[in-house]
């Protein structure tokens, strides 16, 4: 089935399961005990053992006689293909059988990052002969990312539990989980702005914006639609509206994906992606152009553009960023020049763990880019020092990081330390404060 763009639901997949039939442990035990009792009865001449075996034989006969193999079908649909972190999404499973099933057990294999809202890992339902029934289960998206629900296992037992029929079906359902927003009160102001018309940088020094500035006398060449008729009726002559020129910034989000520090379900990359999505949304809302560079073993980029569609392009690209091991050296040179337009503001989100990203970020101000670094601190994710030696090693590491920060600041690059559990707004305020202070220092 093709995906309908207007329908946000994931496509429905339906398949008939190949069923395997296995003997339950109970069948083996009953058969063994019955055989042993009957043999024992013959050998020892004890009819009591034959009486002991008789009920077991009865269960075997009845149970195996009722153990017909069912023909199962399963279909899966996700309520939505895109949700935000922490949101819930419903998974509808349509199940059918050609025979009556007293107890059909359903196990959906969930990838890490998705959990059942409540209840056990499995469900059981009862199906009548030729019945199709839909069950709905709520899933919670714990972490941003792209997920694929691949498999569902169905299991049914014969009426007396002697035979187990199992089948596996491929679900092929995709879910994209968008990162949640961080708290952000103000943005980093770009030192250089440009004049835009849509996504095209204007060649004119002044271009028409949409914000009213003033009125002036009409001169030949002015557009008729700019005439302010109210003012023209009040004063002699024609008067036209003057608008503030549209001046916007190019902002490039630089997400370091060489390395991350991680503890359990949270890491520096998680924080960086959430921050990047939040910052992109805010800059795009004020009609700036935003691009993206995912700098790591796999290089990803998006050219800077405006608009809400660009926001979704950025978020989709962020979701696909992951840490992968690589020893290959990478520098700024590998990034296409169109991705880093001149005079762009580069907002780097990095734990500053990998030397390649440290060097690349130092190259940027040398090439004339306006750089700010939000250091996603790896310190909270490190192991807790167990003794004095480890404590000393940790302090040395922190001092080394202080020295790295100072090196950036000597080049005029503000570095804000952002730790897990604190607001991103605090880090951005630190960056802005540095830039204000740095301007005053140059004035002296």
């Amino acid at each position, binding site marked *: 089935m093709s995906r309908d763009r207007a329908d946000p639901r994931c496509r429905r997949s339906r398949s008939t399961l190949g069923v395997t039939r*296995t*003997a*339950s*442990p*109970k*069948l*083996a*035990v*009953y*058969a*063994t*005990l*019955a*055989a*042993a*009792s*009957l*043999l*024992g*009865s*013959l050998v*020892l001449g*004890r*009819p*009591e*053992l*034959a*009486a*002991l*075996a*008789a*009920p*077991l*034989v*009865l*269960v*075997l006969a*009845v149970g195996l006689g009722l153990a017909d193999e069912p023909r199962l079908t399963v279909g899966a649909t996700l309520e939505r293909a895109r949700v935000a972190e922490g949101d819930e999404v419903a998974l509808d499973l349509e199940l059918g059988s050609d025979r009556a099933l*007293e*107890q059909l*057990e359903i196990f959906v294999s969930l990838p890490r990052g998705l959990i059942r809202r409540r209840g*056990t890992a*499995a*469900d*059981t*339902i*009862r199906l009548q002969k030729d019945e199709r029934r839909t069950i709905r289960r709520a899933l919670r998206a714990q972490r941003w990312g792209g997920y694929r629900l691949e498999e569902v296992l169905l299991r049914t*037992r014969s*009426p*007396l*539990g002697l035979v187990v029929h199992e089948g596996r079906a491929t679900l092929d359902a995709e879910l994209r989980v968008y990162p949640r927003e961080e708290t952000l009160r103000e943005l980093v102001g770009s030192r250089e702005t440009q004049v835009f018309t849509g996504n095209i940088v204007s060649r004119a020094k002044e271009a028409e914006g949409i914000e009213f500035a003033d009125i002036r006398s009409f001169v030949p060449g002015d557009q008729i639609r700019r005439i302010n008729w109210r003012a023209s009726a009040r004063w002699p002559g024609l008067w036209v509206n003057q608008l503030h020129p549209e001046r916007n910034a190019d902002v490039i989000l630089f997400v370091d994906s060489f390395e991350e520090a991680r503890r359990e379900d949270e890491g520096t990359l998680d924080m960086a992606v959430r921050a990047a999505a939040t910052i992109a949304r805010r800059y795009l809302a004020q009609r700036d152009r935003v691009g993206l560079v995912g700098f790591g073993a796999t290089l990803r980029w998006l050219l800077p553009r405006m608009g809400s569609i660009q926001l979704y392009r950025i978020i989709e690209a962020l979701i696909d960023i992951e840490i992968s091991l690589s020893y290959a050296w990478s520098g700024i040179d590998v990034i296409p020049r169109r991705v880093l337009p001149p005079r762009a503001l580069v907002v780097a989100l990095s734990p500053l763990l990998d030397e390649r990203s440290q060097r690349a970020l130092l190259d940027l101000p040398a090439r004339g880019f306006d750089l700010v670094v939000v250091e996603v601190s790896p310190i909270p994710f490190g192991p807790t020092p167990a003794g004095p030696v480890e404590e000393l090693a940790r302090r040395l590491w922190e001092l080394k990081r202080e020295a790295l920060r100072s090196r950036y600041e000597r080049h005029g690059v503000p570095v804000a330390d952002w730790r897990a559990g604190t607001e991103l707004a605090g880090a951005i305020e630190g960056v802005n404060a540095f830039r204000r202070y740095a301007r005053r220092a140059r004035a002296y």
Partner: protein
Amino acid sequence: MGAVIVLAFALSSARPRTVAWAFALLAGEYVISLEIQGDQLDRAAYVYAGLFLVAGELAYWSLELTVVRPESTALIRRLVAIVLVAVGGFALAFVVLAASALGSGGVALTAVGVAAAVGAVALVAGLAVRARQSP
């Protein structure tokens, strides 16, 4: 008594293989008790057989319930099935015991017993072969 302790441990820790050994021990304990009482027919053997079956059904049902939680109607239906099977088991065991008490058996009855034993052994062997062949 030892078998009961083993069964209790097996059910509390949800170990199907240990449950199997517990029932083997139960059957073994019964055989020993028969040998101790001599040639006298145990007239309550059908009761033991029925209770043995009920214990087995309840034990394996409790193991299934540790994996999944079925609907309440399914629970009731399974309970009814166990009761029916238990009644049938009691009845069949009584018939077998009564038949053995009526006469010395005869060739025909012995042949039936041998056939039943061979059939049961063949079933076990078939299960073992299929278990070895399955991936």
